[in-house]
């Protein structure tokens, strides 16, 4: 810093410092933001546009980023806003208060799996590709909840901030998303003959 040609308080020095901070804090999250954008848009070209807009906006409003806070969360928030604004569609308003019903339903899926001997499905097979496809097919806002918490490992708190909803809503959306994924995987297991067709009626 002391070696800078411009005095530390000059506009040129502060711009250089800002740019360096942006490069250091924001750019390393490009892959994460891309993944999130791709899952939101389900389209590579759209995802490119959303990511581009997200980072340009982040750069323009870098002065609003609070140093020391979670930059990835900040970028996800911008990304989701860019995405929502890019769609004329109204914001989804499905708010399920009852995560318990989804937890119980997931238990039912497991009970059926155990009964038919494929309860070790997740441990036995590489379900990555099937999972990715199932997540892509999830409806919003459940997809965002699963992506943010389960894929990107955000806390409930952070996900709540990104989605602009209370923590309880994150929980219920997340539980619904997980339940739908597990039901989808169970029906795929049936399709691929991993389980007797008679297991089908237990969903």
């Amino acid at each position, binding site marked *: 810093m002391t070696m800078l040609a411009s005095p530390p308080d000059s506009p040129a020095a502060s*711009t*250089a410092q800002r*740019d360096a901070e*942006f*490069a250091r804090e924001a*750019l*390393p*999250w*490009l*892959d*994460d*933001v*891309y*993944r999130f954008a*791709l899952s939101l848009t389900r389209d*590579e070209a759209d*995802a*490119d546009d959303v*990511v*581009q807009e997200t*980072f*340009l906006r982040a*750069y*323009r409003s870098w002065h609003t980023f609070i140093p020391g806070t979670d930059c*990835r969360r900040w970028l996800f928030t911008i990304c989701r806003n860019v995405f929502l604004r890019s769609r004329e569609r109204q914001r989804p308003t499905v708010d399920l208060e*009852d*995560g*318990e*019903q989804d*937890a*119980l339903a*997931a*238990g*039912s899926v*497991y*009970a059926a*799996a*155990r009964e038919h001997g494929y*309860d*070790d499905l*997740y*441990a036995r097979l590489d*379900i*990555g590709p099937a*999972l*990715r496809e199932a*997540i892509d097919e999830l409806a919003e806002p459940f997809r965002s909840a*699963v992506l943010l*918490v*389960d*894929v*990107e*490992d955000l806390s*409930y708190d952070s996900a709540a901030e990104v989605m602009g909803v209370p923590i309880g809503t994150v*929980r219920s959306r*997340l*539980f619904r998303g*997980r339940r739908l*994924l*597990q039901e989808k995987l169970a029906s795929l297991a049936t399709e691929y003959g991993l389980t007797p067709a008679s297991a089908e009626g237990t969903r």
Partner: protein
Amino acid sequence: MSAPQQGQLEALGLSATCADVVRHLWDYLDDQLTPEGAARLNAHMASCTTCRGYSDYQSCFLEAVAKLRAQLDAPESLRAKLAEGLKSEGCSCWGEVTKVKSNE
């Protein structure tokens, strides 16, 4: 907290004690339970193979979802486009876009 329907529990083939685990396992795995609640579930699972099996199953599922994070990166074409965008915004670090290593 509303009690689950009796029919649902029967469908699961679980006792009322196990039903508590089914209801709160995700909260437990997400570290959202109070220490007392977590201890209660721990104590039950220590002696119940059915619930331990269910817990393993759900853990495996969540691990599989978490693994997806490592499987997809931003394409080079997007990096190049973003670099151009930042350059035209006057950002001096635009060249970093294609060099910066991603956070794990």
